[in-house]
Each structure stands twice: as structure tokens, then as C-alpha cells.
């Protein structure tokens, strides 16, 4: 059996660990907001759109990460401008994703080394990561992390209620587009690690689990980051020892932790729920409108 120190003697393993760790941190942090803002579908779709960008870059003979960034950021701006309402936005996302996947198939068909490249874009190639990739990943993460810290409070505020935030002078429209661009950047660097199809394992998995375990925003983000790092490290380690795909191991860990938390969390959050003096445990939508006829 390989131990961590054996693995880290190899340059490609060092690259895998560094890039994997950076992505795990930034994807988990931004994932908290993706869930809060109801943008999981957008996150997933940006991966697909990135597929076209990566395939295009391969065709042109440049590093796929640049194609990923160009396509996902372009799509993020498009989605942000097109849709204000959730329904409207999801339709815009669907339409843009359709075009993206279509282009991706075309680019792959035009490229001769078809199957191998497609496989690595779809499922990630963490052990094929170069020093340049590590550098791009680190730079993109620093930019995303810095902006995220700067917009933290207004972003959280507008995620809860856009109208209230706007009344207080928060530029909600600008924030919503900027946030999608940040998600696009994180998706682009995550694709190399985990692949287009498994983008949720690092973007949504850790944050979804953390949001179930704590209701404090800062604590949820820290917990998501810790979970993300844990899945990535253990995933690489298990994969290296069994010759399994890394993506499979990380995805299984992410799912394996989420499932029991999801099933058990209603029990402990119910226990914490304080019964107020009014004594009503009903939600607003469950309360019967009393004396419906009595309106001014």
C-alpha cells in the first residue's frame, strides 16, 4: 500500500494534491452561496458550457483551462443579464447550455484525438495536471476568494431578499452577475480535477452537507471547506491505492457523507427549534386564513 509520502515523491501527485486542495477550498466556499441563491442548476450547466470551451481549446492546441474560462464567463454574463426571475433564468440557462453542448460535440468531432480528450474533460484528469494548471488554478482562486470576501455581506443580504437589499443601496443586479462570473471561474478550474459531469461533488456536495449541519453562515463555509479538503485528499489516496478513478472516489465520499446527514438532520434541528410563547409551530403557508370574508 502507498502512503501519502510515497505518493508525494512524484511531481504529478504533488500537482494533483495542490490543485485538488485549492479547488476543494474555493469550490466549497462558493458552493454555500450557490445553494443559498438557488443556483445549483446554473452551476451544473456552466460545467457543460465549459465542455465546449475545453474542446475548442484542445482543437486550437491551447490549454483547455483557457477555453473553459472564456466560455463559462461569457455564459455567466449572458445568464446574469438574461434572467432576473428564477424561471426566466433557468430557461436562459437551458438554452445557452444547449448551444454549448452542441458546439462541444462539433469541436470534438473536428479533433482527431476524440475519445481520450472527451473522457478527461467529462470526468477530470487530476493526475494529468501540469504546473501551469496549478498556477492558473491558484491565481483564479486568489481572485475569486478576494472578491468573495469583499462582497461577502451584501451578497449574503441580497441572497436572502433582493428587494430589501436593493432598498438599502446594495447593487443587487451587478452583484448577481459578478457572482455568476465567480462561479464560472470556479467551475472552470474544478473541471480539470473532477470533470464536467461531476462538478457537483466539490461545488455542491460539501456546502450542502455543511448547510445541514450548521445554520451560521461563516461556520457553514468553514465546515464545507474542511469537508471538501477531506473528500479530495482521501479520494486521491484511495484512488492511488486501488487504481480507481479519482473522480469516482471523491464523488462517492461526498455522497456517502451527505446521505446520512440529510436523513438525520431533521431530527436534530427539530430538537433545537424553540417553541415560542405563541406556541405556533405552523409555517405561514400552513396557517389557515381565519375569517376569510372579513376584509376591509
Amino acid at each position, binding site marked *: 500500500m502507498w502512503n501519502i509520502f510515497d505518493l508525494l515523491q512524484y511531481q504529478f501527485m504533488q500537482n494533483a494534491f495542490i490543485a485538488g486542495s485549492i479547488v476543494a477550498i474555493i469550490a466549497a466556499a462558493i458552493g*454555500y452561496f450557490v*445553494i*443559498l441563491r438557488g443556483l445549483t442548476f446554473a452551476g451544473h450547466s456552466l460545467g457543460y458550457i465549459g465542455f465546449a470551451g475545453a474542446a475548442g481549446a484542445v482543437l486550437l492546441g491551447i490549454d483547455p483551462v483557457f477555453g473553459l474560462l472564456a466560455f463559462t464567463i461569457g455564459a455567466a454574463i449572458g445568464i446574469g443579464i438574461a434572467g432576473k426571475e428564477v424561471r426566466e433564468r433557468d430557461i436562459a440557462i437551458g438554452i445557452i447550455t444547449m448551444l454549448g453542448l452542441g458546439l462541444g460535440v462539433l469541436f470534438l468531432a473536428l479533433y482527431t484525438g476524440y475519445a481520450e480528450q472527451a473522457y478527461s474533460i467529462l470526468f477530470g484528469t487530476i493526475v494529468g495536471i501540469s504546473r501551469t494548471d496549478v498556477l492558473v488554478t491558484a491565481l483564479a482562486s486568489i481572485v475569486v476568494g478576494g472578491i468573495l*470576501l*469583499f*462582497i*461577502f*455581506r*451584501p451578497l*449574503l*443580504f441580497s441572497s*436572502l*431578499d433582493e*428587494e*430589501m*437589499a*436593493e*432598498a*438599502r*443601496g*446594495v447593487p443587487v443586479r451587478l452583484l448577481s452577475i459578478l457572482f455568476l462570473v465567480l462561479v464560472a471561474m470556479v467551475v472552470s478550474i474544478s473541471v480539470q480535477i473532477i470533470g464536467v459531469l461531476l462538478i457537483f461533488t466539490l461545488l455542491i456536495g460539501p456546502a450542502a452537507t*455543511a*448547510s*445541514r449541519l*450548521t*445554520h*451560521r*453562515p*461563516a461556520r*457553514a463555509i468553514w465546515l464545507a471547506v474542511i469537508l471538501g479538503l477531506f473528500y479530495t485528499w482521501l479520494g486521491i489516496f484511495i484512488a492511488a491505492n486501488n487504481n480507481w478513478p479519482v473522480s469516482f472516489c471523491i464523488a462517492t465520499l461526498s455522497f456517502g457523507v451527505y446521505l446520512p446527514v440529510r436523513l438525520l438532520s431533521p431530527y436534530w*434541528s427539530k430538537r*433545537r*427549534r*424553540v417553541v*415560542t*410563547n*405563541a406556541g*405556533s*409551530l*405552523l*409555517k*405561514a*403557508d400552513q*396557517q*389557515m*386564513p*381565519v*375569517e376569510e370574508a*372579513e*376584509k*376591509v
Partner: protein
Amino acid sequence: MVQEPAIELEDVSISLGGRPILRDMHVTIEKGEFVVVLGPNGAGKSTLLKMLLGLLRPNTGTIHVLGRTPRRGNPSIGYAPQHRVLESDVALRARDLVGFGLDGNRWGTGWPGRKRDALIDQALDEVQATSFADAPIGQLSGGEQQRLLIAQALLTNPQLLLLDEPLSNLDIARQQDIVELVNQVCRSRNVAVLLVAHDINPLMPVVDRVLYLANGHSAIGTPAEVITSATLTKLYGTPVEVVRAMDRIFVVGAEV
């Protein structure tokens, strides 16, 4: 010193998407006054609040809020938007929501501090929400969430409180709790309150004046002056009958 009014609208008209919403509106609301805004859906109640908040501009006329033209991010206005049911798995606590009222608009992450906590605790206490301060907001009842929205609106020490339908979706007992709370805030802080509602009855004991919007027109005065068959018939442009029975007021013949 003559006190400037809390709100002053002169000749205000606004159209949205080509549809006229309000026409030549004239209203003056004094500081510390409790005003209920009534009217059918689409009459411009929320539009009025948005103009006061600086989110919408009137096509003609002038608006002064506390002596100044409306602008976004005015800390002298506390605003609680129309309530929507929050998803139960939103990872935010009651005190996080209230904290947005204090510094949700500022850049950066902010640092937790004793002074910040004290201000938030004080606001939670004022709306009697201390017992569920650390509960996740998605698991609170409609009335509890409404209290938090009001606490959030009070954190900047506003002189004007705009509440958009705080009583909708609440049962009668919970409606009375909120009315009592808003009245207490209005009187003890001398804050002008503009409260949008569909039913005047739970508000009758506390309201100073009623602003009634319908059909692009508006009427303001005490409930006894405004909610009459004659005034509402003129406002709606169709026959409307106001019926008083068992200490309650009913409007018959028009959508409220």
C-alpha cells in the same frame, strides 16, 4: 422650528410598462403618524413604497422623504418587504437576518463584536424575538419571520418605517401581535409608519389615518372620513357600499 413632514408627495404620477398606476397624487404624512395604505391589488401600494425608497422614479411631480429627494440606501427609512415563505433549509439564523439591517449593505466580511451583538440583541428584544434568536429562519412561523423583518428595519434608527403587507398570511391572533408591536414602535420612537394592508379591521385601534388607493386615485383621512360609501364610490368610479357591523367594517361591491 417648524417640523418638516415625513413624506410629501406633490402632483406625483407614475406609469409602469405603459400602464398608469398613480395620477396626480398629493399626500403629506407627518412625523410619528401611523398611516395604513389600503387598496386593491395593482392599485400602486407597493409602487408607492418603492418610490419612497428611491427604487422607482415618478414620471412627474416631486417627492420628499424627510425633506429630501428619495435615494437608495437611506438609513432614515426602515423597510420590510412583502413577506415570502423562506425555504426551510436556508443556512441563516434569526440574528443573521436582523444583522443585515445593521451592516448588510457594507462591503467586506465584517467582524463579530460585542457592540454589534448588543445592538442586534436589543432589536430582537424590542420585537420579542429573543427566544428564537439562534433558530434557523426557515423553521420559524410567518409571524416570527415578520417580527425579524421589523427588527431588521429598526436597526438604523429610522424616522420612517415602510411595511409591505406585514399581516398577510397570519391568523388573527398573530395579526394582533404584530399590530400591537408596530404601534408600540411607532409611539415610543415617534416613527412615522406606512403599513400596507388589505384589511383595516385589525388596525382600527391604532391607525391615525388611512391612505386609500384605487383606480389611479387616492384619498387620505381618518378611517371615518375615507372608508365611506361616498368616498370609495368616487374613488373606484363604481358603486361601493361600506357596511359597519359588529364593530367591523366591510367594503361591498369592489375588490379590496
